[in-house]
């Protein structure tokens, strides 16, 4: 537990000095805040931008950040030094994962307030975010562990993040894309948010697809961990 906390703190401090990373955490909440308050189009649903950027935040930030952090530690050989200080792989993953999760959730809560959610609705909103962030983060961690360098990780992360972040938006305009998007967790985060906004009950399918995504990501992570190892 002590080591996990040290890793968490280290990551907090390091990310603060790494603009390329912390910008990922704040970019979409800030953009949503600006657009919500400045753009008004006739007939546009309420909090349209909050909904759109929430899904992008979930699809992008946890994925890119966790892949970047882990692959950089592999590339720079800092993980080896951690192992020699008797830090267990699980302690490392909990510290790093805990940081990425809480930092992304902070953005998530900001979205909740921007979207005007209150009480039970805010809680549900955060729960939906948490599920999406978990899936996204696990995919990112799998890529980070698999990659030997940061550049290699980015090469995989970029197309994946495009798919997850933009599919739900494109699916609104195109039926074929909607069918493809149906297997992506981010699409179902979008659908869950839609029903939350409309006050209609969520479909079981939404939860099942997200859970399946989390499981697939966890399996991919397991494979990467076994084949490439962490340290």
């Amino acid at each position, binding site marked *: 537990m*002590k*080591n996990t906390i*040290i890793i968490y703190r*280290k990551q907090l*401090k*390091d990310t603060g*000095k*790494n603009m390329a990373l912390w910008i990922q955490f704040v970019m979409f909440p800030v953009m949503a805040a600006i657009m919500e308050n400045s753009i008004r189009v006739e007939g546009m649903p309420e909090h349209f931008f909050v909904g759109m950027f929430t899904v992008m935040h979930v699809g992008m930030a946890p994925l890119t950040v966790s892949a970047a952090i882990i692959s950089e530690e592999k590339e*720079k*050989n*800092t993980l*080896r*030094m*951690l*192992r*020699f*200080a*008797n*830090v267990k792989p699980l302690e490392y993953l909990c510290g790093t994962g805990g940081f990425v999760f809480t930092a992304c959730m902070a953005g998530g809560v900001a979205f909740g307030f921007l979207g005007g959610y209150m009480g039970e609705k805010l809680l549900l909103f955060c729960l939906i975010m948490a599920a999406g962030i978990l899936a996204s983060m696990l995919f990112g961690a799998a890529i980070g562990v698999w990659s030997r360098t940061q550049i290699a990780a980015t090469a995989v992360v970029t197309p994946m993040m495009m798919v997850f972040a933009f599919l739900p938006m494109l699916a609104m305009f195109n039926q074929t894309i909607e069918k493809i998007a149906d297997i992506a967790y981010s699409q179902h985060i979008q659908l869950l948010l839609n029903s939350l906004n409309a006050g209609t009950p969520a479909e079981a399918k939404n939860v099942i697809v997200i859970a399946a995504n989390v499981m697939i990501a966890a399996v991919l992570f397991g494979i990467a961990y076994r084949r490439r190892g962490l340290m």
Partner: protein
Amino acid sequence: MAIKTAIDIRRVTQYFGEQKVLADITLSVEKGEIIGLLGPSGAGKTTLIKIMTGQLVPSAGSVMLDGHDMAEAKQEMYRNIGMMMDDLGFYERLSGYDNLKIFAGFYDVPEARVREVLEQVGLYRYRKSPVQKFSKGMKNRLALSRAVLHRPAFLFLDEPTAGLDPATTLQIHKMIGQMQKDGVTIFLTTHNMVEAEKLCKHVALLHDGSIVEYGEPQAINRKYNYRNRLKIHLYSGEDIELELQNAKEAAKTVFEYLQSGQIETIHSAEPDLESVFLELTGRSLQEGRQDAEEDWSFGKAD
């Protein structure tokens, strides 16, 4: 007092694919001594350090530290190992102090110790600068201070002074000497003869994965010191070597050159570890280095 074996390398062989990088290495190191592993680029020095520190399980053979097999008992042994590899492994955006503080936390070492080791390497003044702003010498010193932070019984230093200026090198030598006084067993690799002769009780010369000579530096030098030579450098740029066994002939030659005013410099060329190595293997220890001319500033070939 009985001399204790601290590091026991037994018939270690390492393959990478088809390539045999280490061939049947056997070597033992007494507790509290400094041993130097000398060899040109690609000889297998880093590979042997990786095996000794349990980062690599050898294809055959074993390494025992204090009687513990490194292939099995790694975790418990890590507490006793301080290590400085050729890629240093820092969080470059964080300050030197923060880097060490993180490890002090893992090792349960009081934070006062961070200040102590930073002062020892003369970096306390720069403790707040991010490591990425450090020069190579500062990074090496920081790596050394991290390696000794938890007062390990073993110190493995992979080319601790490669690419450093003489002043920094001297500072690192002092620290290594201090560690030895504190009873630490130190295993270092180098291509620097002067360094090995100055610091090490024993040296092993590694060539193509085999140890071609082992012993005290002075003893090795004496063993190969059967023909002292004189080196004359002429103004014309020509170099002449004279065997001193043939004293009369040599004296006559020197006299002639002196008389005609052709001599720029005269050196005695006593065999040192460098020439011993050259004689044993036909290869220079500096082979594969970019700036091998300057004794203190070896470039990294890889």
